């Protein structure tokens, strides 16, 4: 069963490599292969998730002991995110099939490399291996942002490339210093040797990891690339980057910080305040900048920044509810934002609509899309029966419970701001049509993923209690790093 883990990483790389040979058959036959592999991978990750229960799977690549080789570690948290990621990638595959017009071979190669990299980031238990997978993800992401070869895409891709490679270097510094002081790269072993580090080095490495990953997932002062990149990328890619990639980069930071440093370290140095203030900055800047945008995707991208702020605030509170809420918000924001980007992508593909003002009277032309947009938007704002509300509620209560009143207030105000800019779109969309506009039909390759995201967001509420239990378990797991360390050391 453990081989499933390596299969999940290697199979996308394999597909990416053989895409060159089946380039001619990609549109029909090759795509079926992709689809079946995607379904199989989703089922396998579900299987692993259900089978593993509460134990931690350790896979030693190359059969070497953990002191010599690389290991993959799959615990509840990584498997949960893995399952989420596989589902999203499955629907993205469908959407991309409809969306990408030229050069399927390159696109799907890059798509699968992204998947492989993200899976590797989730599963690896080795610091340098994490860096390698992070680089795969980043390089592929830089290119995918500019995939359309438009002026905006290239510019955004270049800016992302500059900031992202600086971030990679900073992370590499952190890893290098850790290796120089402990002589090891395995997370669990390094965690045991962390007392070798003097406080100054320990803090410095923390800063390196925090800033490096902070740039990668677009925390407040490092956010500008995200708005450019996610707005200029092809829509299935915007959805993946916004919905999955930045979450998994945040996941890596959580993993490193919780295993290497532990929760106590954050308490001792009052790092909560750092998390909180940067998170509050993200929320405010994201929402305020979104208010003034005229481009739909750019607005959505700024909204992503704000929601990353919510998640960071929730995690920074370290109160049980705040952390659970943050994890839950990752899922909710992922699903909703992916749905919104699919919506934007469908419009760009069918009608070449990019600006908000072009959406005029869309409702009369395609009611299905408009209703879906309303559901996603209401979820993002956080209106009760929808999933966005519950995570926001948990975060606010958790943060307030931990004694941070101002962030809680800011989150509440943030949802008010987000109401204003989503409402603007809705108002334009529902404006009565002067002349009878022609209706347009959308491809099933577009409609199915959008519908699936709505279903996902409903399921996230319906099975809320079960998901809460899982997330609670994850929260308890990451609060206590000894579980992880013991499981790896005595595997």
């Amino acid at each position, binding site marked *: 069963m453990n081989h499933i883990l390596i299969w999940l990483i290697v199979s996308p790389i394999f597909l990416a490599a053989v895409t060159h040979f089946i380039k001619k058959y990609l549109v029909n036959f090759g795509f079926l292969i992709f689809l079946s592999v995607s379904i199989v991978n989703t089922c396998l990750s579900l299987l692993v998730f259900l089978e593993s229960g509460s134990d931690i799977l350790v896979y030693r690549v190359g059969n070497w002991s953990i002191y010599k080789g690389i290991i993959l570690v799959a615990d509840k948290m990584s498997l949960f995110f893995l399952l989420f990621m596989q589902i999203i990638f499955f629907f993205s595959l469908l959407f991309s099939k409809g969306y990408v017009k030229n050069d399927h071979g390159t696109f799907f190669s890059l798509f699968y490399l992204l998947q492989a990299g993200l899976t590797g980031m989730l599963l690896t238990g080795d610091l340098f291996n994490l860096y390698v997978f992070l680089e795969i993800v980043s390089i592929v992401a830089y290119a995918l942002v500019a995939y359309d070869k438009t002026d905006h895409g290239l510019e*955004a891709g270049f800016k992302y490339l500059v900031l992202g490679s600086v971030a990679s270097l900073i992370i590499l510094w952190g890893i290098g210093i850790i290796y120089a002081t402990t002589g090891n790269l395995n997370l669990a072993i390094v965690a045991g040797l962390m007392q070798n580090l003097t406080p100054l080095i320990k803090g410095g490495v923390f800063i390196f990891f925090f800033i490096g990953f902070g740039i990668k997932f677009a925390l407040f002062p490092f956010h500008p690339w995200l708005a450019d990149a996610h707005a200029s990328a092809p829509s299935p890619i915007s959805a993946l980057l916004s919905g999955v990639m930045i979450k998994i980069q945040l996941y890596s930071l959580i993993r490193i910080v919780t295993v290497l440093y532990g929760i106590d370290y954050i308490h001792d140095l009052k790092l909560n305040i750092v998390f909180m203030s940067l998170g509050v900055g993200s929320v405010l800047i994201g929402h305020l900048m979104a208010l003034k945008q005229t481009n739909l995707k750019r607005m959505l991208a700024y909204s992503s920044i704000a929601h990353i702020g919510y998640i960071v605030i929730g995690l920074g509170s370290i109160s049980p509810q705040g952390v659970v809420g943050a994890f839950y918000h990752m899922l909710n924001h992922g699903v909703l934002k992916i749905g919104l980007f699919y919506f934007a992508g469908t419009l760009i593909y069918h009608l070449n609509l990019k600006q908000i003002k072009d959406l005029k009277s869309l409702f009369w032309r395609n009611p299905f899309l408009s209703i879906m947009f309303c559901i996603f938007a209401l979820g993002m704002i956080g209106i009760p029966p929808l999933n966005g509300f519950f995570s926001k509620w948990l975060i606010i209560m958790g943060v307030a419970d931990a004694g941070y009143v101002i962030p809680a207030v800011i989150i509440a105000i943030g949802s008010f701001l987000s109401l204003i800019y989503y409402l603007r779109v809705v108002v334009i969309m529902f404006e009565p049509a002067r002349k009878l506009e022609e209706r347009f039909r959308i491809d099933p390759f577009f409609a199915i993923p959008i519908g699936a995201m709505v279903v996902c967001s409903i399921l996230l509420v319906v099975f809320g209690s079960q998901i809460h239990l899982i997330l609670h378990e994850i929260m308890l797991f990451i609060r206590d790093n000894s579980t992880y360390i013991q499981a790896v050391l005595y595997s």
Partner: protein
Amino acid sequence: MELIINSTIIILFILGLYGLLTQRNIIKLAICFNIMEASILIFFLTVGYKPEGSYPIIRPEVDSYVQPLPQALALTAIVIGASTTALMLAFAIKLYKRYHTLDIDKLRRLRG
């Protein structure tokens, strides 16, 4: 000795960063990025170094070797850095075609 090596590494990094912050030419930015990367490669090599150590190919007549792991890591880092640099140059070519300039300050269609 250590102070000298440490400050070399740091100064190299800071110099690269300074260039990244002040140079406007995209090609120069790529070069500055490589300088920054060089500093970390030097750091990796110093980590495993031993004054009397030989290169890590095991031979019966030698009994002191430098650490092989940092070298392997450095090799990987070099390859990744080279890929990134190549990507930067490709972007530079493409951007020059579109914007007819290599000035980073002119690449500002995306703002606000």
